[in-house]
């Protein structure tokens, strides 16, 4: 991947990484959206969307509660979508390695968010005097610095991850030996398992939710029967 191809994807990763927490939290950073947008940039939106669906199923489990540490799905899904779309049609194992790459980046992204929050805290400590004096310059300066570092974090993470992962994963795909349908079955099966587990975790305390879930599953299976 040459740098000129990388730049727009890294910028997209920065912007969508920013959406996770800092601005505007409009869920542009959800895997469904982020991976599809990356797919659009690479020229294969549908491949990006499929990677986004698989990652979204896994991300359902993540509830971004305040100070908890969680995977960063925005930049990671841009990486996953770009990798999946970059493979184009055909190579078996492409979806598996794209999703695996995105999961690794989501893990690293969670750590980078933790680092950014600590840097923000140190800046806030150093600005205590201005804050206690009610200086708007200090308040706005901290806000702008926080937004800037988060944007840079997402862009560097996305660009760096693609630089490392794209050649590595292309090499892996060239050695792939499992049947393409089975490969897709494994990756989506694992993600659907995480999603079903997440649905239980989130909704099991709600009265009657399990019956709603089972009723929904019956409807889903009936629709599959009708579509085939």
């Amino acid at each position, binding site marked *: 991947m040459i740098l000129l191809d990388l730049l727009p994807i890294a910028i997209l990763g920065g912007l969508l990484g920013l959406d996770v927490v800092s601005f505007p939290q409009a869920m542009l950073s959800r895997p469904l959206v982020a991976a599809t947008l990356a797919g659009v940039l690479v020229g294969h939106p549908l491949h990006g969307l499929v990677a986004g669906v698989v990652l979204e199923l896994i991300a359902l489990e993540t509830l971004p*509660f305040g100070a908890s540490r969680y995977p960063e799905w925005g930049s990671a899904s841009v990486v996953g979508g770009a990798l999946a779309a970059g493979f184009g049609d055909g190579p078996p194992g492409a979806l598996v390695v794209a999703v695996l790459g995105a999961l690794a980046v989501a893990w690293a992204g969670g750590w980078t968010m933790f680092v950014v*929050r600590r840097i923000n805290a140190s800046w806030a400590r150093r600005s205590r005097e201005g804050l206690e004096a009610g*200086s708007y310059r200090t308040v706005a300066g901290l*806000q702008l610095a926080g937004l800037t570092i988060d944007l840079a974090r997402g862009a560097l993470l996305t660009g760096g991850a693609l630089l490392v992962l794209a050649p590595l994963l292309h090499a892996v795909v060239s050695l792939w030996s499992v049947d393409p349908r089975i490969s897709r079955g494994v990756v*989506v099966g694992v993600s*659907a398992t995480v999603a079903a587990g997440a649905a239980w975790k989130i909704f099991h305390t709600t009265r009657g939710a399990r019956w709603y879930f089972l009723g929904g599953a019956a409807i889903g299976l009936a629709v599959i029967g009708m579509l085939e």
Partner: protein
Amino acid sequence: MTTPPRLSLRTKLNVATRLFAIQGSWNYETLLGNGVGFCIEPALRGLPGGCDGPAYREALARQSRYFNAHPYLAAVAVGALARAEHDREPAERIERFRTALCGPLGSVGDRLVWAGWLPLCSLLALAVFGVGGGPLLVVGGFLLLYNAGHIALRLWALETGWRNGLRVAPALGAPVLRHGPEHVARAAALVAGIAIPLALSRVIGPGRTLLGVELVAVVAGAVLLARLHGRVEGWRLALGILAAFVLFSVLRNG
């Protein structure tokens, strides 16, 4: 209830726009505190003495201290605290009120949005994908639906806070906040049941045998995950299984 003092449309828009960046400098010490100060600032300019007056500076210093809440419902706090500053309430009272708001605004917002509205919209989008929706419909539909609720909640929260000031607590008992999370959770459970098999089916393609095996495996895996009671995070499990699968596929070739 007293009639709230007038805030110009420009000031309201300024505050409302800044709310989207309320977590811009989120950190482990003051959490949302600096963001609250940043958002409330345009409303403080109307205090006696104007921008550089002691009332403005004292209020901005007070509002930039530690604060924690759900980022969308923090708008209730921004509105209510701005109103309290305009009503010239005593500083100790404002600080006590500020502390008391953190808990409820956090827990209600987390249940309503992170554990309700977001999964519901996401699952609906997955269901649309499962029945054959293309990128524009899936992504566009998700963003429109989610943000209709998101933006409406932020604007309602800001207006409710400003209208009620320190007496905002009864407004937090609004039906949408009290019963909303439960209804949304039920709807999301129903849609989860529909969306998961549909999305699974579309990604693996036609063929009943593989789909049947997959569904049985998914149910067994989900039961196992549920029994582990959150001791294992699903995404870590997925990472481990997929890494092992990739290794298997590559080594088998060699």
